[in-house]
């Protein structure tokens, strides 16, 4: 656990970057520091590994004041990832990753073997190991940066806007990768970003800082969205808080109707039903779209009509937000539930979704 105990940092010029910050970063969780530019996120982060020393208060690492620990020794036990990756240009990728194990006195072969293992862990091809950093894309460099920080298996990881210099698609995949890694490794991670969506996606808890380095709110993302502490936080969170909140509501307990699907190969018996819409399913169980039984021809099969557009969600995996999205994409207003392999499990009706939405917003309010 990392504890900020009344921490203040006043720089030589007189700027107070962090003002009486008190918070706890729980072991094994991702805590995100978020806030506008210049609010003291980087300064706060760097007081943990003594790249900056506080001018007041204490930063404790598992109860020990970090300023009592020799900085290089402290830092070798804390992974550090920065925006431009900061890879050593003169060393091959594998040797970059092996840096801290080597500093800790591991012999070369063992350090390299460990580095190779980590490259694989962060999703990099082993063939990249012998390249130099300039021969990698920005996203690949960032992955190497993460691998390097993890190489000596430190319990704590500090990340300062690690994904902000890559394009949105790569950023999303790096975020997913981090969450996947964290599910395995359970590190104590402090993650700095100015992107509130990134904070909400990654954080177990999110600390919103305001300029002048004061803590505005520290809460789980759902709580933050549901109950911003004040106007500053509300404004910082931005629009669509209600919709974004639905990202935290599971879809597993939604009632499914299995009588609203019709296989494409059956005859037009579907016309008999009173339902205005049916989900058309191919022979492999995959969705084709919505059809209105009334519009079916007197003879022939459903294959003869052009199905209307549809949306799907993976039940149990995707949140309620995805269900709402799927429903909005369909003229029927219903969402098609599929399993992980894409086969239709059933339909969540608009009525069932409405009930779930009503419950969700109620829950989020506490």
């Amino acid at each position, binding site marked *: 656990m990392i504890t900020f105990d009344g921490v203040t940092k006043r720089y030589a010029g007189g700027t107070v970057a962090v003002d009486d910050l008190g918070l706890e970063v729980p072991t094994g969780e991702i805590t995100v520091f978020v806030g506008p530019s210049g609010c003291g996120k980087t300064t706060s982060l760097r007081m943990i590994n003594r790249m900056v020393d506080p001018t007041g208060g204490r930063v404790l690492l598992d109860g020990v004041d970090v300023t009592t620990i020799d*900085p290089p020794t402290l830092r*070798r036990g804390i992974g*550090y990832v920065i925006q431009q990756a*900061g890879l050593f240009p003169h060393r*091959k990728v594998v040797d970059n990753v092996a840096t801290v194990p080597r500093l800790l006195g591991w012999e070369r072969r063992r350090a390299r073997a460990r580095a190779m293992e980590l490259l694989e862990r962060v999703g990099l091809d082993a063939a990249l190991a012998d390249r*130099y*950093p*300039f021969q990698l894309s920005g996203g690949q460099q960032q992955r190497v940066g993460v691998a390097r920080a993890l190489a000596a298996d430190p319990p704590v990881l500090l990340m300062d806007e690690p994904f902000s210099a890559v394009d949105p698609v790569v950023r999303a995949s790096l975020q997913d990768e981090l969450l996947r890694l964290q599910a395995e490794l359970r590190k104590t991670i402090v993650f700095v970003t100015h992107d509130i969506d990134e904070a909400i996606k990654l954080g177990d808890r999110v600390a919103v800082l305001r300029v002048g380095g004061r803590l505005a709110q520290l809460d789980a993302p759902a709580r933050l969205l549901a109950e911003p502490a004040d106007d500053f936080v509300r404004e910082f969170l931005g629009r669509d808080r209600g919709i974004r909140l639905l990202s935290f509501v599971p879809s597993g307990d939604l009632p499914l109707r299995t009588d609203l699907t019709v296989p494409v190969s059956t005859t037009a018996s579907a016309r008999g039903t009173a339902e205005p819409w049916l989900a058309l399913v191919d022979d492999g169980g995959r969705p084709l779209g919505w059809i209105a039984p009334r519009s079916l021809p007197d003879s022939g099969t459903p294959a003869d009509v052009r199905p209307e557009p549809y949306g799907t969600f993976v039940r149990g995996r995707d949140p309620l937000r995805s269900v709402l999205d799927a429903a909005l994409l369909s003229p029927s207003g219903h969402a098609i539930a599929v399993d992980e392999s894409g086969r239709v499990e059933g339909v969540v009706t608009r009525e069932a979704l409405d009930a779930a939405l009503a419950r969700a917003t109620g829950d989020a309010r506490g």
Partner: protein
Amino acid sequence: MNWLIEFLGDPANWTGADGVPARLLEHLEFAGLSLLLAMAVAVPLGLWIGHTGRGALLVVLSANAARALPTLGLLVLIVLLMGVGTIVPVLIPLVALAVPPILVNAYEGVRGVDPELRDAAYGMGLRGRQVLFGVLVPVALPLILLGLRTAAIQVVATATVAAYVGLGGLGRYVIDGLATQDYPRAVGGAVLVAGLALAVQGLFAILSRISVSPGVSRRPGIR
């Protein structure tokens, strides 16, 4: 061209104390010694100033002084003060000539390394020396070598002044040739000096090829 062939083609110019091999060796002795001395002072100093940021003014002063330094004047002055007999009077102005480019480039090279990179190095737990020698120097090496090369070429070219004060080296041919109106000899000497400077250039090209990481020089052709 004819003069050159006349001078270099004469077997008498290739033997004895005034032969090309002997003069070349003397020349290399002045230049090499001066360069080594200058390196011993300027490389550590430049690295240290670049790394710590302390004493940067010294670098600026030395760079400016270098531009104003009259090598020949300095040489004559030292000879007047110390007399001839040893090669020390020649070494002093040559060292003074070689120090500034080495110092300035070592300093600029280290100081110019991306601050993010320096930050990352400290952040991972490298100590000051490890940051300097493990990261800053390898990354600054092209510039450090550039300073050495510049100094080496200047020293090789300028070591001709040794002849003015009665010492040897390739400058002898130029001075003696001009004095006796033996132009083939003067031109031959000048061409030898130029050739030596080119050889130095080539030597440094090989040296940087060997010592600079492909990741820094971004040489194509590696995977």
